[in-house]
């Protein structure tokens, strides 16, 4: 059985130590939120006892600290940072390191061994200051409430295969056997005849409201100016008018099947070899789109056909930037 209170205490020791000794200037870690057992990412500097005290590790650390790094890149540039990462977060971090988006020498990586995540909102608010959170091979317990892993609201965790990612520091021991990515849902989709398949996807694309939460929460969707409807334009007062005038509009603002499809499918293509299947996009989606289903079309090809393991090693070449003579041709892809 894993006791997250003691694991959190161990994590706090490591984080405090790094800050005390000046090995890092700041640490990005989860802290207990106001609405326990929810947690939130926090930037902690030396001397912030008020925040250090709340540092926590549990199956409710459901956000990605790597997303925090990507969103605050400019503000944190040049600083030595400690970052607490779960297995999938470290996978995502490796993707960003492969692409030289972040520098390994700026980071001290504190890994927390993850058995899976659970939806905090499925549990009643715990009473009292000390909340025992534990887990084992079968499920998660908060105080007296227990839920099986399958009922905890995180389907991608059930098929997670990441383990022992080799961070600088480690907290916790795995309490559950890791799974493997499972593509049964894709087989069902591929078995649909074209007309039915089109209906299925059209219904999906129609519901998208283009809030771009999937893009913003994704730990590896880190382009400063996104190709599709950029959230932020990379222009300065010196940018020539012709450059601004000719900026392509691949998907216009209309929320329709065609424009939404351009956005969702382009993101899928750009994620080839980069998506770590953390599932945060799907969990965040306010209208409940099955986004992993779309991304898995590309994930399946990458893993099964090209046998590329995403984010395994920061020294690996990025998927789309690598080529091997043994790569299968189109016929081998089987879509």
């Amino acid at each position, binding site marked *: 059985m894993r006791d997250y209170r003691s694991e959190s205490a161990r994590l706090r020791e490591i984080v405090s130590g790094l800050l005390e000794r000046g090995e890092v200037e700041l640490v990005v870690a989860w802290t207990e939120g106001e*609405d326990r057992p929810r947690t*939130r990412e926090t930037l902690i500097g030396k001397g912030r006892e008020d925040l250090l005290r709340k540092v926590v590790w549990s199956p409710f650390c459901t956000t990605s600290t790597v997303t925090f790094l990507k969103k605050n890149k400019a503000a944190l540039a040049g600083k030595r940072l400690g970052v607490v990462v779960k297995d999938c977060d470290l996978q995502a971090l490796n993707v960003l390191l492969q692409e030289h988006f972040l520098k390994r020498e700026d980071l001290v990586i504190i890994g927390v061994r993850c058995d899976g995540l659970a939806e905090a909102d499925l549990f009643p608010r715990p009473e009292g200051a000390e909340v025992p959170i534990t887990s084992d091979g079968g499920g998660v317990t908060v105080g007296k409430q227990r839920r099986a892993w399958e009922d905890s609201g995180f389907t991608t965790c059930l098929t997670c295969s990441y383990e022992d990612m080799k961070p600088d520091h480690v907290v916790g021991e795995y309490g559950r056997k890791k799974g493997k990515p499972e593509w049964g849902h894709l087989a069902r989709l591929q078995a649909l005849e074209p007309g039915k398949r089109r209906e299925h996807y059209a219904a999906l694309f129609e*519901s998208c*409201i283009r809030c771009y939460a999937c893009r913003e929460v994704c730990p590896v969707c880190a382009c400063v100016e996104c190709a599709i409807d950029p959230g932020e334009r990379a222009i300065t007062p010196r940018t020539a008018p012709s450059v601004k005038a000719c900026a392509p509009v691949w998907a216009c603002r*209309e929320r329709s099947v065609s424009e939404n499809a351009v956005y969702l499918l382009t993101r899928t293509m750009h994620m080839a070899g980069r998506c770590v299947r953390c599932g945060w996009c799907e969990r965040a989606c306010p209208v409940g789109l099955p986004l992993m289903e779309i991304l898995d079309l590309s994930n399946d090809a990458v893993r099964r056909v090209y046998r590329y393991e995403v984010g395994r090693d920061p020294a690996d070449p990025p998927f789309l930037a690598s080529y091997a003579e043994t790569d299968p041709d189109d016929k081998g892809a089987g879509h």
Partner: protein
Amino acid sequence: MEKALAETGWRVMVPSGAGRKGGYVELRAGGRLPRECGDHTKPSTPPKGLVFPNNEELLSYVLGVKGEIEVGPASHTMARTVLYGTPPCDTASFRALDSALLKDMAEPGYAGKRGLLGVIGMACSRAGRWCFCTSVGLSPRSNIGADLMVYPDGDDLLVERVSDRLDGLWKRLEAGAAGADEKALRAVEGKFVPRVLNFVFEAEKLADALEKAFGSPYWKEFSERCVSCGICTFLCPTCHCFDITDVAKDELSGKRLRTWDTCQFPEFTGETSAHNPRKERWARQRQRVLHKFLYHPRNHGHMMCTGCGRCIRYCPVDINIAEGVMRLGGSK
């Protein structure tokens, strides 16, 4: 009620249920109206989309090869619609939307549709862990924004006439109903949530306190984990900021479209010159909070927040507007 509504021939929209799929949907012929409402029946998408859809065509245009311009106005109308069974947080959203979009000058798209919507609000029997309607001057029994208000009482329904907009329906109901009065209403009230105890803050002091806190360093801390995704504003029943873009069909024709936008997107205030008065996330989050709790109250006399809690529940990074407001408003 089902019979009277069916007789009007109007489109009836009801909550499809809690959760992220569905939103407010059309009641099928012969379908049953919801018998209760609360956080457990509240969909993630609010009802504003009925009168303020994500896509609204504003005009169409055809250009001639010699430079002629033909502009075709858009029709902003819709079928006569009744929204039934909204909890007070969603019902009251129409007060905020009406103030913002109709006062002084009417926004044509909204104005065209608003007159064709009747709202039948329902008293709330179950608050959720993120609800805080009482802190913003509403309550689980509030009828603000409603044209009729219903209070379920076992198999019965107590119906209150709040405005004259649905008088056609009211007369039909009166014909088949037993009389009721204030006393009956008081008797039934005990079935509904009296007060919501989450995020209690003192509304009267809030606006001034927030104004004083304009330069507070807390805004940075409040928004350091924000990812500027727009969920809070897209799901908010009162948020109504919009974008206007041209959608070209070919080189010579197309349309102008109004779509939902959010003050949280970096380019919301980004000028073509590259100057951006709200370049930082904390400036944008501050704008959202102050718009709801300072600017809108100053302009219209009520908060632009109904305490529905969706922004807190669905924010992917656990940003809590009530927490922020309580921190800066000084009350805890």
